[in-house]
């Protein structure tokens, strides 16, 4: 018996091919969703810190008479972290209202001081005028100063950053970066003096 061959589809039969157009449409929609919700999260990082519990502040304070557990920041700056007594302090004064001009913006650094534990007075590292001495140059001077301290080996590699309360966060981070780059491994932040005064 001769095998009868199926006639080609073009000649009038039903075409049994896979219709991929709806699948492609759906794929495009899914692709659009993923593209819109895609976030390159690796560009954000963190600077870790720890908060001493309020009850510990009261214990560590030299004078407990004026300190209550709900008033942790009203103790003197040096009592904030007793283990950091030997730390180097970087103090940053900022441009306040009335001092700003076309070279120096409000909340930008005005003066940078450094003080070691053995020194009684803080040493002026840079006075920023915005023309001859910009923030970048001042940070380079600070970097040189701190690197010299690290090389001498007189410090315990602890450093406290004490900025003015009105200093903008971007400059605080720039100083933090400079301190870490210069070789200080443990960098801490001190609450601003304005905040301490307000709470008192």
């Amino acid at each position, binding site marked *: 018996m001769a095998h009868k061959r199926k006639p080609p589809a*073009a000649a009038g039969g039903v075409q049994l091919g896979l219709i*991929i*157009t709806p*699948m*492609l449409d759906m*794929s*495009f929609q*899914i*692709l659009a969703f*993923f*593209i819109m*919700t*895609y*976030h390159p*999260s690796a*560009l*954000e*990082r*963190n*600077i*870790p*810190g*720890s*908060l*001493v*519990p*309020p009850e510990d502040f009261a214990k560590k304070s030299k004078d407990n008479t004026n300190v209550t557990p*709900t008033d*942790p*920041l009203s103790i003197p700056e040096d009592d904030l972290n007793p283990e950091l007594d030997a730390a180097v302090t970087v103090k940053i004064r900022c441009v306040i209202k009335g001092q700003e001009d076309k070279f120096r913006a409000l*909340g930008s650094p005005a003066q940078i001081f450094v003080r070691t534990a053995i020194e009684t007075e803080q040493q002026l590292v840079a006075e920023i005028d915005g023309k001859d001495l910009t923030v970048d140059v001042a940070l380079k001077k600070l970097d040189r100063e701190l690197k010299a301290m690290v090389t001498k080996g007189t410090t315990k590699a602890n450093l406290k950053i004490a*900025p*003015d*309360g*009105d*200093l*903008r*966060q*971007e400059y*605080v*981070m*720039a100083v*933090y*970066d400079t301190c*870490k*780059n210069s070789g200080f*491994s443990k960098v801490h932040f001190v*609450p*601003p003096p*304005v*905040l301490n005064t307000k*709470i008192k």
Partner: protein
Amino acid sequence: MSASVDSEELDINLTPLLDLILQLIMFFMITINFVRVDQFDESINLPLATQAVPMDNTAEDWIFLNLDSHGRLVGTLSTFLLDTPQKLKVHLMREKDSMERAAKEKGKPGEQKIVIILRADKQCKYAEVWTVLHSCQLAGFKHWQLRVKTLPGAKGPPPA
């Protein structure tokens, strides 16, 4: 003689296109990171720092706080009226309690490591950051992290 009988049908071959699309979908599905709105608030312009570290993965839970350039809390917290440090403290205490209760229900007793992630705008004042941190401290939080932006390809600090 009609064309449909003699000439071949000129269809576009969609199969390679579909293959490519499916590969792209697979890439995005693998790399997608579903995050809360608080974690990527586009209105916050973070300061730049090269010496930052990746997020602390040892923490059990995180609370994200977004501070705008005027020192105001924005994001999901903006729906609450948290205009004073005291109100923020009470709100954070409630959040902490609910997180600890949820952890206990999951069978994790003891103190939970909850980290405050503070996303402060680069124009924000240092005192405003500390006002928020002070409320966190009073609410009983011990760990915080300041979120910053890093440059693409930045290696971060060397290991201690």
